[in-house]
């Protein structure tokens, strides 16, 4: 049986893990390497490092962090935020990341997804969607939830699949950091039309929220931040709760 994956999402600013609400109002949480190691040792299935200020080439950049994390963490690692070119993707993969996520640049330059998946294989290209509810639909946002695009998030998900992404990561900007639960309707709408694995992020405030989400058909993985960072639940507690709710997880 395949397992629903529990992913720790570490948003990085300078050399710190930070956490905001609606991707804004950032607070320092701690050292990325220490947190990554801790979550790894407690049985997390994957880790996503997101550069929240897209400062890939700044001092203490994310590549250095990943390079060090990969020496001690032997599970899949994803890097995102600020990746703009094949050159950046190459550098990210060389630093030890297994997968990269693209949002802003995918919208600005969709051919990048096509080219990247041809060169590196679609399995390492994740299309990231930051969606904000707009009446009865959702709009895709870029620049870490700051800029609107006028693009329908659901249609964009389908387009990303056509371009060749191997997975999609859906973040509800409305729910992100609120601990109010996931935007299930958004997830359902996307799961209905795409056939690649879907990672959902943004809103987990309790183990029940996670179980409710993972019961939806088509959800392959859930990414959590606040729950873990603020010690509201441990990896064990979340996985055990998922298991009790009939979700198949790796214990």
């Amino acid at each position, binding site marked *: 049986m395949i397992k629903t994956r529990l992913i720790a999402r570490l948003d990085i600013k300078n050399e710190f893990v930070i956490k905001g609400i609606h991707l804004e109002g950032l607070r320092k949480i701690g050292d990325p390497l220490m947190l990554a190691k801790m979550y790894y040792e407690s049985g997390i299935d994957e880790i996503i490092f997101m550069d929240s200020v897209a400062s890939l080439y700044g001092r203490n950049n994310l590549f250095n962090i990943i390079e060090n994390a990969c020496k001690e963490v*032997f599970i899949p690692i994803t890097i995102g935020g600020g990746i703009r070119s094949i050159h950046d993707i190459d550098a990210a993969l060389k630093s030890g990341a297994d997968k990269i996520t693209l949002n802003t640049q995918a919208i600005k330059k969709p051919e990048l997804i096509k080219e990247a998946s041809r060169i590196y294989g679609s399995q390492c290209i994740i299309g990231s969607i930051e969606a904000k509810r707009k009446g009865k639909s959702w709009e895709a946002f870029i620049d870490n939830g700051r800029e609107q695009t006028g693009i329908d998030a659901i249609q964009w998900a389908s387009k990303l699949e056509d371009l060749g992404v191997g997975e999609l990561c859906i973040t509800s900007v409305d729910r992100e950091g609120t601990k109010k639960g996931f935007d299930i309707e958004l997830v359902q709408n996307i799961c209905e039309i795409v056939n690649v694995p879907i990672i959902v992020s943004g809103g987990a405030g309790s183990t029940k929220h996670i179980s409710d989400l993972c019961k939806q058909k088509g959800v392959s993985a859930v990414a959590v931040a606040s729950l873990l960072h603020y010690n509201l639940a441990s990896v064990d507690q979340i996985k055990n709760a998922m298991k009790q709710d009939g979700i198949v997880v790796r214990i």
Partner: protein
Amino acid sequence: MSKKIVIIDYGIGNIKSMYNAFYNIGFKPELTSDNRTILNADAVVLPGVGAFSKGMENLNESGLHQTIHEFIKKGNPFLGVCLGMQMLLDDSEEFGLTPGLGLIKGRVIKLPIQPNSIEKLPHVSWNELREPREGRWDGTILKRVPVNIDVYFVHTFIAVPKYEEDILAISDYGGINFCSAIHHENIYGTQFHPEKSNQRGLSILQNFVDLIK
């Protein structure tokens, strides 16, 4: 004497992860595409993710195709991981029909998931390893590995060995049993990523090193 482990660097995939995994269990593998270094190794690993045709193109252009054959003839342990395992077979249906290294009889095909299945492609997940028959794992890279352990997979294509004896492990996805590890004499292959499958994955790599005589 310290064991000389070589990871073949042919310009594809995340080879650093493989290096880090071996380093963590106490070895310092060499990353190289140098034919002589490969031939002198005690054990060789062929990693790789991505497209079969691109991988084979790189192996053919660099002369590594021949080197791998020569190394394997020496009888030292060889491990292909993910694409590195798939390339051990005769050919792949990935883009048209691309010839592989031809070290294991069989073909690489797309996971035959039904279009209406809830399972998706690529197969990205932790999934279980099963032993094809009791005792098959004895003395191999999967020795002492608990049956049904979870390891990390990310792939769309699968290897279909012609001979059942070459199948070392079986996994299931979307109701389809597929070959998740192969073994033929000194040749091993894993469809999953031992270097990304936590401590258990590392113990599989340790078993591989232990095969060095």
